[in-house]
Structure formats: C-alpha cells, structure tokens
C-alpha cells in the first residue's frame, strides 16, 4: 500500500483528505505544518507528498526545499487556494499543482498519476 503524506494546517481538511484518500486505497499520514511534515518525511518515508503553501510556522515552499534535501525523487503536489502558483510551480521544484477545491477529483487523479495502483 502506497503511503502519502498530507501537510495541511486546517483540521477539517486533514480529516476530509484522510477519509477520501484512505477510501482511495492509500495509507495516509497527516502533518499540520511544515516542521511536522519534514519530520514525518524522515520517519514515515512516504511515497508522495501533498502540501499546502500558506501555513503558520514554516510555509509550504520552505518545507518543499527541505523535503527535497532528504529525497529528490519523491513526488510533491502543491495543493493551494492561490491559483497564481499554478504558473510557476516548477520553479519551486514541485511536480504538480492542484487548486484547492471541494471537488477532490482533480487531486485524486493527479496523485494517481504518480502512484498507479499496485494490487
């Protein structure tokens, strides 16, 4: 079972994502900020990271560069409420950008594109 790390400061969204991605067949690890995310990356070694940008404490962009220090091959998907990151997510070394939406279809598709099912 593939393991994904979701770094999100909003508790409700963490809950929503956990429910939805568990249903999708992933092992879900949750972090509520950048610091936790970096720690969990080391300890849990997830296959993919979904990360918000605007967060208290360490923001997502800083967190991405630290996560990449650890393992450059792990896919990172930016999941932000700010559409302008869409144009230049590559420059932050993220692999994809999905705008935050109540419709999780796009995000799920993107995750799946990096982690195809392995029954």
């Amino acid at each position, binding site marked *: 079972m593939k393991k994904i790390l979701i770094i999100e400061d909003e508790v409700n*969204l963490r809950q929503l994502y956990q429910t*939805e991605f568990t249903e999708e067949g992933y092992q879900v690890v949750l972090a509520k900020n950048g610091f936790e995310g970096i720690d969990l990356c080391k300890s849990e070694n997830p296959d993919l990271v979904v990360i918000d*940008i605007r967060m208290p404490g360490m923001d997502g962009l800083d967190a991405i560069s630290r996560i990449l220090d650890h393992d450059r091959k792990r896919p990172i998907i930016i999941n932000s*409420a*700010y559409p302008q990151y869409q144009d230049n997510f590559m420059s932050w070394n993220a692999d994809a950008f999905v*705008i935050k*939406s*109540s419709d*999780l279809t796009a995000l799920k598709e993107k995750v799946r594109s990096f982690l195809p099912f392995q029954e």
Partner: protein
Amino acid sequence: MPYDLGNDNTGDLGSTLNPAQEAVFDAVIQHAPLGIIIINDGGIIVRSNKKASQILENPGSLDGRHLEELVQNDAEKELFLSLMHSPSVTPKLIKINSYSGNEIEVQIISCRIGSFICLYLEDCSKILTLEQELRSFKTAINSAADAILLFDKDGMIFFSNPAFEKQVGLSQEKILGCELQCFWSDKDSSEKHNEIWQCIHQARPWFGEMTWMQSNQSLYDVEVRMTPILMEEQQVFGFICVQRNITERKRIQQQLLHYSENLERLVVDRTKSLSNLHDITQLFHSTETLEKRLRLLLISATADEVFRFNRAFLLLTDKSKQYLIGRIAFGPSSPEEANMVWNRILGIPRSESLSDTLLSYLENAGSGEQRANQIVQILSVPLTDESSILVLSIIQKRSFLVKNGVTDVHFNQEIIRQLGNDNFAVFPMMVQDEPVGVLIADNVITKRPINEEDIQFLDILVSQAALAIAHADAMEQLAKKMQETEMAYSELRASQEKLIEASKFAALGQMAATVAHEIRTPLVAIGGFINMMLKKRGPGDAEYSHMKIVKDEALRMEDVLNRLLFYARPNSPFKELHDMNALIDYVVALLEAECEEYDVSIDIERDYIPMFPFDRNQMRQVLINILQNSIQSIENGGRITIRLCEDNSDISIKVCDTGIGIAPKNLSLIFEPFYSTKHTGTGLGMHVSQRIIQNHGGSIHVNSQPGEGTEIEIRLPKELEAPNEKDSDH
C-alpha cells in the same frame, strides 16, 4: 631902471630920509608881495622885508647881516656875489639851500640904486610844481585809452585827446570847433538826443550807451559819461565827455546771448530727450514679452518722435554665446517703401504721450515684409571674429560711428555690403559685461548725417534696452522652466496617482487574497464533506438533490474565488518571442463553443507580423477577456472583427464587435476594478487586462457607440523593454 637913492654909499640908508619918508619907505618894503633885500657896497644887508625871510626860510630879520651868510656853500656865495657886482633886471632862477636846509628855487631880479643894490626875490617852487602837475595831467589825458572830449554848453568841442582822434579818424585841428552832434548817428533815437541836450542845458551829468559815427560814416558803440565842469562860482566852464568803445563788448554780448539761447534750447531739447528716454525705459519694463521689447527698441530708434533713424537692425547672442545672430529689423528698403511705411505709421492716431504713441506703433506697425528684415536674416557673426565692427563694439564696450566706411578702427567691410550703406552706427548691448546683442542704426533713405547727440542718447536707450531684453529673456526662460516643472509635476502627479491606484489595488488584492483563502478553506470542507455524503446516498435518496445544490454552489463560489485571486494579482509578464497570429487563432478556437452559443462569427484581418516578446499566458488571458466580453455583448447574433497590424514601433490589435456598445457614462468605468454589467462577472476582467497590457509597456483604448458596437485597441511595443512593475508577491 636903477633907482638912485642918494649918493651916500656909506650904507646908512635912513640918514637920507626924514622920519615920515622913512615910515612910508618902510611900509612899502614890508607890504611888497616880493621879497626885498637891499645891500650896500660892502655886501651888508641894510634893509629887508619879512617876505624875503620867508622865501629864504630864515628866521628873524636879515638886516645887518652879510649877504654871504644867507647861503650855505661857496657856489651859492659866488652866485650872490655876482648878483651884487653885476646886477640884472632879467629874472634869474637860482637854486639854493635854505637856512633850514631845504632846497628852494628863487627867481631874483637885482638892480643898483645909487650905492645900494636891491634884490627882488620870488619863490618859484610852487609854480614849478603846478607846471609839473599840468604836464602830468596832459600826458595822462593824451595817453588815456578812453576818448576824452571837452565841449562847451553849446556842444562845441574845444579839446580832444588822441584816443578820440584815432576813434573818429580825424586830426585834432579838424575836431576842435566841431559840434558834438556831428559825431552822433541816427541809430540812437531823437528822444535820447533830446535827453542828453536837456542834461547839458541843466548842467547835469549823463551816462549811457550811444552809437557814434566815424569820419568814414561807419558806426561804433560807446559807453558815454558826460559830466559838467564847474568853476568856483558854480559857473559852467564846459563839459567833459569820456567815452569807451563797446562795439566789441556788444558783439560779444550778442554772441553770448546767442550762445545762451542755444544753450537754453539745448537744455530744453536734452530734457525732452531725457524725458523721452525715461518714458521709453518705463515702457520697456511694462512690456511683457521679449518679442515686444525687441520691437519697441527698433520702433524707438526709428520713430519720428524719438531718434528718427531710417533703419534699425537687432542682433542677439545665441544661447551658447558663440554667435551674434540677426533677429529683427525695422525700416524701409527704398524711399518709396519709406513713404509707405511712414504713411502707414502717420495714419496711426498719435497721442499726447510718447508712451501711448510708441505703444500704438507697437500694436499697429507691421514688420517682416520689409527688406530690412531680409537683411537682418543674413547678419550672423561669430563672437570670436575680431575683424567685425559688431564684435569690436562688444569687445570694446562702446558704440562706433562709421562715416563713409571709416571709423577709428579697422574692420571687415562685409557689413557695408550687407547693409548697402557705409554710414551707420553700431551700439553694443551689454549686461554686466555679458554681451546681449548689437544694434545697428542708419539713415539710408534720408542720408541725414548721424551726429554725436544721436549716438549718445541711443547709447543710453540701448543699454537700458539690453537690460530689459536680458530680463525678458530670463523671464521667458524661467517661464519655460516653470512650464517644464509644471509638466514634470503633473507627470509626477499622474504617476503618483497610478502608484496610489496600484497600491490601493495591491492592498485590495492582498485583502481579497486573504479573504478568499479564509473563505475557501471552509468552502472546501463544506463541499468536500457534502461530496462524501453524496457518494453514500446515491441519486435515489430524498436529500440527494438538495445536497447536490450545496455541492454545486460551493463549487461556484470556489470558481469565483479562483477568478478573483488569479485576476487580482497578475504576475509581471514573462516576455518571450511568441507568434501573436498563432495566439489569436488559438483563442478564437478556444471560444468557438461560446461563439456558437451567441451566434457570433469572428473574422481575422491580419498583416504579416514578426514574432515579438510578450507573456503568452497573460496575453491569452487578455484576449479571452476581451473576446468574451465582445461575444457576450452581442444579442441576436453578430460579428467580431480582429485586426492585427504593425504600426511604427507598436503592434496593434483591434477587436470590433457589433454588440450593444457601452454608454458614454460607463466608458470611463470599464477599467475600474469590480465594475461589471454581467450577472456572472467578477468586474475584474478588463481591469486585469489593462494592468497586463500596461505591464507589457503597452496601452489599451476603448471606443464605443451604444447600439452600434465597441472597438478595443491594444497596442504593444515590438521591442523588448524593461518591465515597468515587478510583482514580487508569491
């Protein structure tokens, strides 16, 4: 004849006279007006009178003394003894020293009377003195410079001095016996003559000026003093007339009078000139523009009321102070034109005041059509050319009067050819040693010689004018600078307004972003959980349709937020070479479905344009915004035309639609943020489009007629330029 007083020679005179005779004799001797000394043969004085003692200045009686005792030295003794031995009735003048030591002159007659010798003495000292005095007077009168006449109460001349004789040109013989009025002239009135005669008859003096006549009939002016000569008994002996020739004095007086009149006239003229100068100077300072001041100087130099020069040329130094350049001139080129010019000026009503007259000329007198102005256009001299009389006048800071091509310095005669005249004056215009320009004035038409006075006064005027012109020039420079400053200020204000707008918008965007983010998070939660719930219920469930509404509305709100956030914060353009033709095709294809919906056809008219730098994503957004607006403005079908062409350094993209158009009152609002007439719009599309275009260094303009359609033109620079604004926000 000798008197014989007896034969007694003993010396005893008295013995021959009885006492009565003796008394008579004694009285006769004592009362005689002459000094009498009677001596005997022995030289002893037997009788003498007091007069004799007085003459010889000998105190006491001489009687009984020897003749020798009367004198002091041997020579005198000899003289006296000779008188005694050879008496003579011929008077003998002798000089002796008196008893008291004075030198006295005595006239002596001696005669023998019997045995006695009688000496008669007369004191001559006084007579000699009188004679001397008379001689002196005569010499004085004869050598007097003034003419002197003596005449009697009938006017007959009985004395004249050489000065008078010389004056009238006649000898004394011809003058004496003539009557006074023979020499008088008709130039004096008969009243004056009568007055003089009245004075003569009344023995009163008369002083005055007369005109007398010489023997050759020529007249001369004299100052005359006639004074009566009165004798002791108040009898009029005659008159003395002293006259002085004042012809020369009169001539000089006349000349002085003439000079003084000239001087007065000159003073009046100069005062007038100075007052004119003052008026003109005042006028200079009340005239506003440089151009008017220049014209005023030329008009003053040529106007009939002031300097009356025929022509005046003005050269000014250029900005770099390297050249004198002909600026403006005034004056006719021919006598015919002179008549024309002056007739026209004469037609201008003249005013009492010089200022008003000149102002009237300034307003009405034309210029520019005259040849003088053609000449001034060719006058141009480098300030380093010291062979030019114009430059010399500036270097030497003085005016030059060129007469027949010559003045006190050598100069290049080219100017004479240019002016067509070799008589002119050059005036330097200086302000604090800085050359302002040069004025040239001449009388090419009237040929009136230029005099020193003209030069002096015009020189003063020119120096005043130089100040006024420099002042006006400075003022105009200042005005220009002020205008520039104002322009810079308004530009600054405009960019400040832009900046304020930008910062307002940035703040607004910031706020919108924050709000959007805060709203989006719960919205995602709402929508997300509803989705979860919907999956469990399925379409058959009673709540399903309601929950579906919640889900869709949440999505719609998200969409609004997406647009708001995206449009609010356009990034600075990332310009790369792209093909605008291709982009337009792409966008038109993208909007195909929408065109069908609104029944709109899109035509593209294009020139070949090269690739040029722009941000493809941003420009795509702009084109989508504009075309969507156009499509949505078209009711019941219509057409959109896109024209793409190159215009100088810009690329122009025009989008014309046949839509409903925009009301004039709304035209200015369409670029305002959150302005929208559409139900679904955010009101940000046009605003963000404008910002993107501006960030590209381009511009966007809208023309619209309600009911006819809208034309939007975008202009983008072809060349890459530095981005105007750096959007550094993440």
